């Protein structure tokens, strides 16, 4: 039941489109650009997979305002992110931090590539190792190729 209510609330809160309003924006274009950048990296805590920058939920609006307040007060970008994670946890970061819990996430892809690539190279080397005792002469190869080609056509 609680879940149903929440889902209904979500649907009402999260119709797409209306996000950052002109009234929220900072006068200083450089600061505003940083605010937008941060806004795109923070996840709305009400909507699904939306950044606060493109969410029209009430909380997302408050978070956008807080980001701008911190920036106007002279905070660095990291400090603003830290301000948010202190309140909402790593959940608000659309790019998960690199830490023990996310090692598999970050290294999984490269690991697949390394393991599979390494195995393929090993296999290729192994296959090449036992050279056939009598390698074909150029002439023989040409004949075989011609035969193969005829066969393909």
């Amino acid at each position: 039941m609680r879940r149903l209510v929440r889902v209904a609330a979500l649907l009402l809160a999260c119709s797409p489109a209306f996000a950052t309003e002109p009234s929220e924006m900072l006068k200083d274009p450089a600061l505003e650009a940083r605010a937008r950048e941060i806004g795109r990296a923070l996840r709305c805590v009400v909507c699904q997979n939306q950044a606060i920058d493109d969410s029209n939920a009430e909380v997302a609006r408050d978070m956008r305002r807080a980001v701008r307040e911190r920036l106007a007060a002279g905070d660095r970008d990291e400090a603003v992110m830290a301000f948010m994670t202190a309140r909402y946890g790593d959940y608000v970061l659309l790019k998960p931090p690199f830490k023990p819990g996310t090692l598999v996430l970050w290294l999984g892809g490269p690991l697949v590539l390394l393991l599979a690539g390494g195995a393929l190279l090993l296999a290729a080397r192994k296959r090449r190792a036992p050279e056939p005792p009598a390698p074909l002469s150029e002439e023989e190869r040409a004949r075989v190729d011609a035969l193969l080609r005829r066969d393909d056509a």
Partner: protein
Amino acid sequence: MIPELGHFALILALAVALVQGSLPFVGAARGDIRLMALGSTAALTQAFLVILAFAALTQAYVTSDFSVANVVANSHSAKPLLYKISGVWGNHEGSMLLWALILALFGAAVALFGSNLPDSLRARVLGVQALIGVGFLAFLLFTSNPFERVSPAPPDGNGLNPLLQDPGLAFHPPLLYLGYVGFSVTYAFAIAALLEGRVDVAWARWVRPWTLAAWCFLTCGIALGSWWAYYILGWGGFWFWDPVENASLMPWLAGTALLHSAIVVEKRDALKSWTVLLAILAFSLSLLGTFLVRSGVLTSVHAFAQDPARGLYILGFLLLVTGGGLALYAWQAPKLVSNALFQPVSREGALILNNLLLCTLAATVLLGTLYPLFLDLVTGDKVSVGPPFFNATFVPLCAPLFAALCVGPFLAWKRAEIAPALARLRIAFAVSVVAAIVAAAAIDGRATLSAIAFGFGVWLIAGSVTEFVVRARRGRLRTMTRAAIGMTISHAALGVVVLGSVATASWQVEMIRTMKPGETAQFAGYGVRLEQVAPLQGPNYIAERATLTLTDGGKPYTTLTPERRLFTVQRRQISETSIHTNLLRDLYATLGEGDATQGWTIRLYWNPLAPWIWLGAGLCALGGFVSLTDRRLRVGAPRRSRPAVQAAE
């Protein structure tokens, strides 16, 4: 009465599918031609029955028969006809019926066009196809009956989610399902081959058209979904790495890998067990996507009404289909040996590299999509994996893929030299470097990564063109197969997609401001004037429509009319964007909140090369369709007489 007929047709279809999923196997094992032939008859009958059921549900929607629960929940009498029809698959039950319909149609297609297949193989393919059908039909009948009645019938329905009332989204699911379900044929071929213990050149040729067709549809489906997101979400984003998007990307990546590895089987009789595995995985990933969308294990903007009981059913089905296939694979695949030898630097080697990278990409998407679930279950920690993660992991992996993509076609089979291939690509390389430098110089230095990505897009196009020119110079144009032409188109089209996405994502220009009627502004070299914001009455919504006139050097250029619609039945607001395109850029406008005294929030975007994303995707699919018309596939009834030629090396 008609809904009951539809329900009855579904029950009959299930019975027919049960027959089709059993007797042809017996026939194939015993060599009984009559039992094997039963497969084709049953496939056609099953398709007829499911069409009947689908027509019955469509009829209920079109006539707004509110005694059917499904219609009540998802339709409304005031809805335009197109959305009454698309409403049929705009919900869980109806979309499952559409899935079953496409599955049955593919079965019928195999029965109709599979006359060149050996009887036993066709019987087994149809048998496997029918077993999948049994799963879906039973799922429909026992957990998600679309024909359920309500009594008394309410006077009107609840209406369809306004987000789905859109021409783009009306055709997005059918195309997507044509792709997903098309891979079921490939899967069925793989299982049949494993049962027969035989994968060879002929098999690869038989599978190819089905894989190609599925891949083309999936490409179109994904592109249409992305286009929909682009114009509906109101700020010009086109890919959000949402779980549902990822669910469609994974089978696409696996299917692309399959298309390439199957070439090696076809030409060189190698990579057999790997190709069979990919054929199983492409369909399994399609099923996984269905599971993710409907089970409620993940949250997503697009997810259907979620129900754990249905989730368990699909999970069981997924386990049965994928697990059964993979178990058979573990048992039979070791027997599929290939003696074709080749050097690492060769066409085969290049295609293996392609597969390695594509599969790593798919694994990255899978891991990113499911990681929040894993971590939550194991440690209870909540994390979000969003676009910045994928930009940091997925995109870099594309670089080696794209770099190698243009080189591969220049490598000979079996053994090749890399230097001559690179020498041929000199000009293409120079052109792309210049393009990257120009892009970096034209835009501020901060966007260097984007400039490099832009260079990669140019490289893909230039490299593909080079390959075509080299062929033409050798006078091989006339003998060039449609498959080769299709490849060139698709590869170049990928470059077009890359250029479009990089340019839009990196160099978009934005203006957000409050405007009152009569007010003017400057935007991306155009003069903008808000003429008026007027109320508007739609068929099932009320709207506010802004009229923005754009002038270029004082002369009238175009008018943009973004709307904000309020759907009265659901009381939901949807923003209707207005886009002016000249194929090189989109001018994109949305109307935000406001009133006459305060003014309205107007958002304007200049999206450079944005149309190329979907143009490129369309071209990419077109390349696939061109390849599909290849003579070898149409006429090509490869006979399976000769034993596999063993290449001597």
